[in-house]
């Protein structure tokens, strides 16, 4: 990601101070790696751009409205579904152990269908193949419940996109989309989120567009929603044609964002303004 000039200057000053023997007040990088900018992780979660009370809402499970969806997901996890009359738990047992790390590895390539899919689509494939049940409508409350419950089981773990050439190709397509100007406002994701993060759009501070907190309870929605809902909001915001849920462009963007977020801690289920 593009590092602003002021930051580079700060790093060089910190380097100079280090050399002079004074520990810098805010060390952005380990001393050994001062020569390169690559090791400086300039990435900041969207949570850092919100007010203290919104951060508190995310941090505390007794305050986080998304926990209502998690609670719904837990109930569904234990409820038999489809012609199989089996619940998720029947095969997967306790989600706290069996699902730990799963959300961290999505989007992923699904061999059987030959496509890159996100977690919600994976849940639906399980329903169809294992429970002989109809897939849940994308962005429906039932699907968001399960997605929130599963994503919570990876909270604190690092975003870990799998090594897979299909995924790499999808991420490459996503990277192109990310940098492409679209819509009547003729803006690309990169222009706001890489080049102007920290600045203001109207009165909102522009975050870096990391996706490690999804699904999120967005105060603007007054509900939990997926990353795809948020992407569609942005696309709508620049007055471009909005792809439908599950569209390949959205999956490609998700794949790119997972690469971009690699190593960042998962915060799901997050709260965002």
């Amino acid at each position, binding site marked *: 990601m593009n590092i602003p000039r002021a930051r580079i200057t700060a790093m060089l000053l910190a380097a100079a101070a280090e050399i002079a023997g004074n520990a810098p007040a805010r060390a952005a990088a380990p001393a050994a790696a001062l020569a390169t900018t690559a090791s400086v992780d300039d990435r900041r979660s969207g949570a850092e751009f919100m007010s203290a009370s919104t951060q508190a809402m995310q941090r505390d499970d*007794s*305050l986080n*409205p998304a*926990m*209502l*969806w998690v609670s*719904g997901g837990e109930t569904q996890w234990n409820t038999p579904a489809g012609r199989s009359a089996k619940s998720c738990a029947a095969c997967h047992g306790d989600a706290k152990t069996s699902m730990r790390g799963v959300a961290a590895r999505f989007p992923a390539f699904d061999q059987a269908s030959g496509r890159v899919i996100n977690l919600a689509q994976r849940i639906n494939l399980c329903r169809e193949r294992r429970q002989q049940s109809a897939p849940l409508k994308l962005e429906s409350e039932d699907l968001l419940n399960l997605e929130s419950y599963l994503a919570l089981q990876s909270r604190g773990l690092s975003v870990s996109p799998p090594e897979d050439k299909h995924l790499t190709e999808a991420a490459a397509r996503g990277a192109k989309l990310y940098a492409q100007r679209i819509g009547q406002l003729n803006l690309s994701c990169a222009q706001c989120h890489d080049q102007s993060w920290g600045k203001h759009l109207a009165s909102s501070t522009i975050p870096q567009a990391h996706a490690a907190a999804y699904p999120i309870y967005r105060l603007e929605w007054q509900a939990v929603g997926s990353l795809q809902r948020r992407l569609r909001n942005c696309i709508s915001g620049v007055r471009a044609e909005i792809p439908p849920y599950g569209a390949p462009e959205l999956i490609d963007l998700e794949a790119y964002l997972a690469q971009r977020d690699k190593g960042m801690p998962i915060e799901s289920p997050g709260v965002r303004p």
Partner: protein
Amino acid sequence: MARALIHMPSTAKQGEIIEIRALIAHPMETGYRPGADGKILPRDIIRRFACRYNGEQVFAAELHQAISANPYLGFFTVATETGTLEFSWEGDNGFAQTEKIAITVSAS
């Protein structure tokens, strides 16, 4: 049945002031918002919340449209005796829900 989450201690010492946090899933539709078709969505809110401790009301709230969706209420009560706390929400369109949580209160 709306999803509801209540956080409170399950045990307390007599006389201890305990904090209770209650969250319930509800759209709290104000009656001022237009839907996708442009028509105003009718009001649908929770209007009243009450907490009863072994049958006696210890806290209540009268809510209006200005309370956010998925209403959150945080309040306090004195742990007086072992028993049950009952939380009830009532609102438009016959909405009524009750949750019960047990508390064990030991001598201080």
